[in-house]
């Protein structure tokens, strides 16, 4: 397990767009863990212990990720010519019931209906082999609260894709959009409209409103020559320098709303794994929350042998994610996978909070230290 420096855990915000109604993630993470954001290339297909044969019986299988996008969902799966003999594993399930039971024990209980036999494993291997997607994923482990799904997750994964449109490169992810929310002090406006620095507490969060700037200035909207945002920017610039604006930002009501949701969530659910991660990729351009299982973690309890992340509901996401590895920068520099990083981060957060998960205590933990 990794023991990080105490102060490297921070509130972190991840912004997708500048508009208030769009997704916004806020959470606790350690950006030093990957020295910023973890980037990964899928390594070659990794073989779990029980996936022995890679030369699957199926070739030319269709990646399910594409299925939803393609209209011809009824396309038949192309089978290679194979003599059906005694050793044909595709039909083994039919004939060899013993193998079935053996393999069923290798997976933990899934919710909902699931088919669990050796042939599915071959199918999956085959799909994975053909999954040539080499996209980069940006990965930020830590407890995050997602604004549009209104739930908390164990990590954020964003597929980095780039498209050229009219000479502009559209990137699905910008490193500038992930930033530590260095909360030190907040700010409130006194009766004269001057900013006053205050200690951030649960009560003083959200104490700043820019509204009064335009109201008190005595100008009517007709007088505003430029668009209101420019007017706002120039008025703020007359009163605040950049560091002071950051205090105002920290004390703004929208940070308060989001931060309180995160703090509520931590207070209520504690620091156990959420068994959910936020994934944004080509299939889910607006992001989705995926249910996950951490097999390494569960197996401590049920003595299984498998490890790595699994997504029972989204088999193709699981296929993409389980091949990802990341180089971690904290502690001994080694490769880690999604599950490992999530467990490391949860451990770090648990140590840091020392079991205190009330709103005030968590907020204190991540602000007091910086100001003192």
């Amino acid at each position, binding site marked *: 397990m990794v023991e990080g420096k105490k102060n490297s855990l921070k509130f972190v915000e991840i912004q997708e767009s500048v508009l208030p*109604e769009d997704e916004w993630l806020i959470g606790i993470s350690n950006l030093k863990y990957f020295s910023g954001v973890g980037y990964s290339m899928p390594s070659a297909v990794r073989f779990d212990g029980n996936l022995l044969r890679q030369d699957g019986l199926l070739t030319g299988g269709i990646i399910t990720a594409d299925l939803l996008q393609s209209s011809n969902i009824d396309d038949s799966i192309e089978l290679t010519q194979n003599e059906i003999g005694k050793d044909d594993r595709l039909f083994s399930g039919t004939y060899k019931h013993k193998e079935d039971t053996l393999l069923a024990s290798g997976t933990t209980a899934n919710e909902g209906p699931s088919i669990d036999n050796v042939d599915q494993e071959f199918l999956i291997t085959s799909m994975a082999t053909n999954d040539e997607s080499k996209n980069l994923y940006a990965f930020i482990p830590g407890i995050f609260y997602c604004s549009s799904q209104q739930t908390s997750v164990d990590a954020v994964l964003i597929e980095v894709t780039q498209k050229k449109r009219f000479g502009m490169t559209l990137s699905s992810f910008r490193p500038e959009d992930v*930033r530590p929310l260095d909360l030190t002090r907040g700010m409130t406006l006194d009766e004269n409209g001057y900013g006053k620095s205050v200690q951030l507490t649960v009560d003083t969060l959200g104490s700043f*409103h820019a509204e009064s700037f335009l109201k008190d200035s005595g100008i009517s909207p007709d007088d505003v020559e430029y668009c209101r945002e*420019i007017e706002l920017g*120039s008025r703020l*610039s007359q009163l605040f320098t950049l560091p002071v*604006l950051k205090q105002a930002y920290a004390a703004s009501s929208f940070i308060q709303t989001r931060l309180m949701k995160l703090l509520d969530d931590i207070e209520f659910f504690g620091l156990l794994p959420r068994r959910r991660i936020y994934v944004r990729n080509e299939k889910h351009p607006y992001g989705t929350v995926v249910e996950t299982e951490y097999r390494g973690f569960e197996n401590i309890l049920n003595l299984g042998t498998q490890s790595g992340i699994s997504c029972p509901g989204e088999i193709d996401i699981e296929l993409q994610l389980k091949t990802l590895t990341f180089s971690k920068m904290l502690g001994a520099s080694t490769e880690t996978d999604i599950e490992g990083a999530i467990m490391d981060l949860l451990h770090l957060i648990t140590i840091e909070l020392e079991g205190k998960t009330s709103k005030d205590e968590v907020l204190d933990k991540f602000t007091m230290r910086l100001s003192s």
Partner: protein
Amino acid sequence: MRELENVARTMVGNLHQSYLYRVLTEWYEQDTIQIREDLGIGSYSETVTNPADLYEKVRKHILTKAFQDDETIEFLMNIPQWVGFRVDVDSIDTGEQAIQAARQSALALIWVMLIPRVIIDHIVLPEDFENQGVDIIVESFLQSDESRKQLDTIMSLELDRRGVGTGFFNISDIVMGYEIDDMMKIERLRVLFVLIIMKATELPFDLDSVFPLDEAALINETEAYIITMHAQKALNNGIKGNSSNRPFAWPLVGTARVFAGIINTLHVMKKYSARMSTCSLFSNTIEGQTQPWTESEFILFMLNEIADYYTELLRSRFGKGKNEELNVFIDFLKGEDIEITSRVMETSDKSGSLHEELSECKRRARIGEKPQISPERRFKVVISTLKQSLEDAQSSEISSEEIVDQIATLFDAISDLIRKYQDSLGSEVDKFTEELCFETSFRILDLLGLGVYLGDLPWITRFIAEESTMIDISSGAITELRNSQRIKRIISAFAGAVSFLVLQMR
């Protein structure tokens, strides 16, 4: 010798036009007692505890009265130190000595700032600039102590002849109260003069690349700066005109004769600006190679100067957007400047065809034709205008209002651009808008030397967007966040954030 006397006569004859000369005469009428009173310095005989401080204080006092903008004053205060001179504390014992030395040195410095401007008579045509003896004066400045002494003598004689009095002109005193290693003195003193003259021309220069030049190159370079400055002034005057004749006072669009004069001026500018190796203003750098501007680039430059003149006119005389015809005319001129230039370059009678082109623009504006400028082109025009004025901002004062004005125009141009592509962008339009705004913001910040604040741009933008929405909601202006407004809201949020960053840093 004879020639030097002639040039000296011209310069002295032109002095009355200069504001700096009036400042100088005031100082010569005042003695050190006045300076003491101004600065609240006490008795005469006291030995000063810190002569260097007093020396600098007096210098600053005199320079502040002569020059208005802080940047120039700061440059002039520091330039002796940058070149390698130090205040000579050993030679200054009393306060009186410090004040005397500082006064002499500051006044000589004002003279050096003044000389380049009066060296050419304002009635001389640009094509005759090279025969006005600029090189002779520059040589006298830069060659040696003897040549400077000679210049002092001749100027004093000439001033005396006009009844001003002797002992008035002493540029040799410029380093009075300063010391430097004798080994370096000749060279560094030369560089000091060169840099002050370059500053006087208000053309940007690269300080570091001045030092390695030898004497001949420095003389050549300095002459080019002075003549380019006068050519540029002649160009501005050619466009602005004088009280009796304003060739570009709307609805006038110049005449073939006016353009003939302007083109002659451009030729002089082209010839001399090409000689300046330490100035980046009239050259392009392509793949590390510096190329002086071609004739067509100068014509393009001139068209933009004329367009700027009309824009100024529109703002001051009619109020922005109040004269639709002129507004459209300016759009034609700015939007089609490249096309106009290339057509003009093909003809043998450039001045005639320039007049024709402007008349044509006026005709089209008058019959209500709208300029067919594609949004991309407009975006490019706006961003290059902004770039130009931000570069000017380094040498002259540009008001915050004007910068914000231009930022607003630029983001307006983005709106047009997006609107054009909205359909083909489909669901990617938001992302495209954000990316374009981000890139554009980066260019603005970078131009202003604020590139390091790019990392702060996303959260400030978000902050502005949130607060603006909040104001709308609490004032009851909106009850829901409309999707149709998304693009506009993204663009204005970025515009607001850039405005904050730019204004806050000023």
